[in-house]
């Protein structure tokens, strides 16, 4: 056994307590020190910008062949955010892994025996994974927006007349090019990142509920992909009533700018109520996860 000449003095024990700030630093250390985090974040950035650029390029190329109806729903903002279809699963995996990798290895027991308040662990994980996903998702959303508009410009797109709503593009003979100041564009791009943030938090809560990597990811993917399929096979009177409350459709509602009454009336919620409902879903999942984390044996 090596003896160290001058022992490291630990801070006094009689004041304060193990709290949130230390736990946040701990969770950040854990998050940054495994490769899967960086792989997930790299996919979010590359898929976000790359896939969106690809789709924008293809859609811009088809403009000449589109009829009036299709031109009416030509949404330069949504094309710039197509990558988030993939990213939503990746941030889900990241959010779940932050929790389930600890259950898989058993290190959750070390984590929980380092604090006498389990809620601190859950809060710190949500804060860290939330901040990381928020920053990466927003940067990606805006980078992707500008990349896609640059591609549209290269296809000869013209800016909309000042003050016109994006919906009026149906009368425009050329490919529309959108700037952030155009109606709804800033909101759609910003909420695209918020959508990913809320999904990551939801997945993190599911991780605490399911405590198993494959189970948590399957549950998360099921909510996004399988729930819509189940609704589809139900009578349209039922599915029509519930469709707009599906998390995946809330995401669509948050990021769409060409919502016209004829297309989406009753099918989608308005953007901000959609945010509110998704926040509520995540909050309920977090609340249940908190109760179970405190009650269950680790």
């Amino acid at each position, binding site marked *: *056994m*090596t003896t*160290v000449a001058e*022992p*490291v*003095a*630990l*801070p006094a*024990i009689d004041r*304060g*307590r*193990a709290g949130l700030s*230390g*736990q946040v*630093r*701990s*969770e950040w*250390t*854990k998050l940054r*020190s*495994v*490769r*899967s985090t960086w792989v997930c974040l790299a996919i979010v950035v590359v898929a976000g910008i790359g896939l969106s650029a690809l789709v924008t390029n293809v859609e811009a190329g088809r403009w000449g062949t589109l009829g009036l109806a299709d031109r009416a729903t030509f949404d330069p903002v949504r094309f710039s955010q197509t990558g988030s279809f993939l990213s939503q699963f990746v941030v889900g995996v990241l959010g779940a892994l932050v929790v389930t*990798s*600890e259950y898989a*290895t*058993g*290190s959750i*027991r*070390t*984590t*929980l*025996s*380092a*604090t*006498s*308040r389990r809620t601190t662990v859950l809060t710190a994980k949500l804060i860290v994974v939330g901040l990381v996903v928020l920053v990466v998702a927003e940067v990606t959303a805006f980078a992707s927006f500008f990349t896609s508009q640059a591609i549209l410009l290269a296809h000869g797109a013209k800016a909309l007349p000042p003050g016109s709503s994006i919906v009026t593009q149906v009368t425009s003979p050329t490919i529309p090019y959108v700037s952030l100041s155009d109606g709804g564009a800033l909101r759609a791009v910003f909420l695209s990142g918020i959508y990913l943030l809320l999904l990551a938090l939801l997945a993190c809560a599911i991780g605490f509920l399911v405590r198993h990597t494959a189970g948590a990811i399957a549950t998360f993917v099921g909510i996004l992909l399988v729930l819509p399929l189940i609704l589809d096979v139900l009578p349209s009177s039922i599915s029509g009533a519930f469709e707009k409350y599906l998390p995946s459709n809330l995401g669509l509602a948050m990021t769409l700018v060409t919502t016209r009454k004829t297309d989406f009336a009753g099918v989608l919620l308005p953007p901000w109520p959609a945010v509110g409902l998704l926040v509520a879903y995540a909050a309920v999942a977090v609340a249940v996860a908190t109760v179970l984390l405190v*009650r269950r*044996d*680790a």
Partner: protein
Amino acid sequence: MISAEGLTKSYGSTRAVDGLTFEVRPGVVTGFLGPNGSGKSTTMRMVVGLDHPDAGTVTIGGRGFHDLRWPLREVGALLEAKAIHPGRTAYDHLLAIAHTNSIPRGRVDEVLGMVGLEGVSRRRAGKFSLGMSQRLGIATALLGDPGVLLFDEPVNGLDPEGILWVRTLLQSLAAEGRTVFVSSHLMSEMALTATDLVVIGRGRLIADTTVDDFIASNTEATVLVRSPSPAELTEALVSAGACVSVADDGGLLVTGADAARVGDVALAAGVAVHELSPVQVSLEQVFMELTSDMVDYHGHTPAEVGT
């Protein structure tokens, strides 16, 4: 100091820990002994607040785990050696835990040095051998320099050198005045390491004593004696007040009389004695006898199954 009182825990219909009351004092190594599945790990998990007892309490220095303000600085635990993310380095693993209790970075290097892992601290823990993982687990327990330490089967998977190292470490930690509570299913290991003993079987307390008392009160002095005329010798010994049984190889096993007395009795009876030796009953045997009806999963040899 760890005090458990009436500690009880069931999983479904299985009662893992059943009304356990014991005390672990500082300054000595206390062995926590019991067959596999007897409730040792469950008890340890309850000490550090991971499992909630159905009844009873367990306190560390008079306080329940959830009343500790800096848990790592008061109680350190090695519960599972491999409980580390395989992709994380040993250093980052310890640093993440250190942050939770405001333990400075320097202490991470210090404990890595104490367990001899300073050379591999930047390697991913997934590449570690079981022995290295055990050392990392011990480093984790020591991180907060706590007064109370729990080790669940710390020598599992270690080579003889590693076992000796753990034994010495545990004793030196206890000598510093810490409470050291070590579980094992190996009596022989505990006999070498521990001073006090808490023995359980099927979640119930069998003994809360010292190793010396445990041995003294549970091993009867036995003497093996061989003689060309066993019948006469047996008669003489029995009339002298000893108990005699016949061993498998024809020797006589005598209790209730020490070797000198057996020799005297044989001489007085005029019986020749060819061998006379005290028998060491191993602690393992004592432990096995005490816990034999407390083992949940008996192994069966083919011969036993056949009969």
